[in-house]
């Protein structure tokens, strides 16, 4: 299987270890992983701002970079959801690209979904000694319909005790540019999520989307909360880097 890996702009700039962890997992699952060098951002900030022309330009670029692969795998439900659900919508009046968008949409997967549903790999002999909770990021859950895959993968991590998180399906308050447009509402939502995480008696919050994790870790740091945050790919790939916001 030739897999085109879409690293996402946040992972590229803020946390490359998520990308390298994901590649390690994909290779262990038997995939040939290629990282097209022409990729930048999926265009979601433009789409969600209603800047449709900018979004269409970026969508065409992503389509050109990724159409040749058997699959496209993304370590983020929201960027994967953008490609799968919104590219065809954004390009509906662009004949040739609309068809390409539909064909790309069909082969685009969120990382954990791909590992479990396509590559059929659920055990990566990972070890992580911690009690953790898993936060379903909204796009993963409601745009990509990923609920069981990450839990199945985490169940096979030795030493990891997964605690049930109350309201795991409720938004953490990130929402891309929402987080900077309405910080006070975002704050309340983050605080509710952090309280639920603490009440679950977990010391580690695991998530599938770096955006949500940067927002939650940033809020926890501001409040002085003693919680750690990691992307699921890092946990599954035994990544040795410090957790998000822990410093080096």
């Amino acid at each position, binding site marked *: 299987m030739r897999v085109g890996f879409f690293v996402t*702009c946040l*992972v*590229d*700039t*803020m*946390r*490359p*270890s998520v*990308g390298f962890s994901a590649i390690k997992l994909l290779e262990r699952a038997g995939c040939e992983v290629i*990282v097209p*060098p*022409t990729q*930048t*951002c999926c*265009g979601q*900030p*433009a*789409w*969600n*701002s*209603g*800047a*449709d022309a*900018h979004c269409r330009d*970026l969508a065409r*670029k992503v389509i050109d970079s990724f159409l040749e692969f058997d699959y496209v795998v993304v370590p983020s439900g929201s960027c994967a959801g953008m490609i799968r659900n919104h590219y065809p919508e954004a390009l509906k009046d662009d004949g040739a690209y609309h068809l390409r968008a539909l064909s790309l949409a069909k082969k685009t997967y969120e990382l954990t979904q791909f590992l479990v549903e396509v590559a059929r790999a659920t055990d990566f002999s990972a070890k992580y000694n911690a009690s953790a909770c898993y936060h379903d990021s*909204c*796009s993963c*859950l*409601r745009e990509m319909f990923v609920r069981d895959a990450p839990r199945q993968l985490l169940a096979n991590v030795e030493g990891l005790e997964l605690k049930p998180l109350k309201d795991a*399906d*409720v*938004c953490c*308050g*990130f*929402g891309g540019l*929402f*987080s*900077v*447009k*309405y*910080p*006070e*509402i975002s*704050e*309340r*939502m*983050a605080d509710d999520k952090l309280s639920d995480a603490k009440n679950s008696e977990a010391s580690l919050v695991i998530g599938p989307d770096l955006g949500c994790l940067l*927002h939650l*870790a*940033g*809020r926890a*740091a*501001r409040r002085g909360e003693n919680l750690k945050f990691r992307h699921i790919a890092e946990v599954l790939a035994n990544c040795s*880097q*410090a957790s*998000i*916001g822990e*410093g*080096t």
Partner: protein
Amino acid sequence: MTQDPLAFREASKKAVHDPRLKQALGRIKGHFQLARRFASSDFPDFDALRGQGAAIREHSITHLHSLLDEFEKSVTTRGGQVHWARNATEARQIVIDILKRSGARRVTKGKSMVSEEIGLNDALLAHGIVPIETDLGEYIIQLRHEPPSHIIAPAFHLNKEDVADTFRAAHSKLDPARDLSDRSALVGEARAMLRAAFEGADAGITGANFLTAREGAALIVTNEGNGDLTRLLPRTHIVVTGIEKVVPDLNAASVLLRLLTRSATGQPITSYVSVMSGPHSEEMADGPREFHVVLVDNGRTRLLGTPAQATLRCIRCAACLNHCPIYGAVGGHAYGATYPGPIGAALNPNLLGISEAHHHPNASTFCGRCAEVCPVKIPLPTIMRYWRAREYAAGLPPITYRAGLGLWAFAAKRPLLYRLGTRLASRVLKKLAKGGRIRALPMAGGWFAIRDLPEPQGKTFMEQLNSP
């Protein structure tokens, strides 16, 4: 209380820090979310029912013209009268004319969001007609001179202590030392007050949950029975509702009823379902002498044929409000408009104009819970995004925002330039970080207002990938 949708940001700031409001909104989960969850999982295939409901509503709004014609004929045949209002002004005038002709001075009202939408109560008062809201929640907020904060629970923002204070202030002739500490005392007092209002009313005004074209009937659901007393006791009954409420027949309405009550309050059926199909006749012992239906457009037809058309499917169950984390944090009043929450975000840009209501579709993380629970499958985030696109196309977002987005897009379309930018950004951010985080940056006040930025790892992914 003035309504100002442009003040959303300020109002939401206040709302999230209001402990009493937080306590009141905290009841959403137990009150509405759980009830809906149980009711929908008890039903054999609720999702299939949603599909059916969506199809009925989609059919209805794409056949509005013929269904409304049929509805008018059916109502007229039964001796009722149908009035058409293009906008809020016409709707108010029609109601006032009917009431003046019949000499009505005191009017009881059932809960109606359309009457809020068109500002009916103030108009009635200005013409010397006294409206008395008879739904308990509406009655409470009428005493407080507040608009509803929720589509089906207008006083949801209040705690029972707030209601006790309101009653003490409004019912000043009663013993000030009376005990109002429990809910039944409050309900009892309201009931006694409302009985007198029902007995003295010259006319009754209700909304409608559905209009059925074949039978010429208007349906309302209530749990308090106030709807029946409002429509049956007075001489004149006026139904004021939106044109989109029409469905083909009672069979279609019965499917939607199953969805409505389960999605709204989690009940398999409400205590009362009233089918109102015309004035008193020879065969009927009682009922109003006059039966009027005022059909209000007020911008609804403008949505037909647009990407926001599905908004017209809405059956006003409020499930989207009840599952919205934004509504749950700020409550209804912060929106400064009749319709709050996700459905408000879809309706208000059309009702009020996008420049007036621009906050509403923007105040969403697109978490998608609203669309997930909507009984008629309205793609609410898609519609909110459509309004954002309209806003952007009209050049309404601040110039700094558009320029920033333009600059970012310019770079993102040029991978080499983009790589330079991200390398620079990750290095600078890394340098600025202390103890794993950055506490502030210029021109990023929105982010740093409430949170730090975790330190980046240093070299970008692409840089590390290509270095040996």
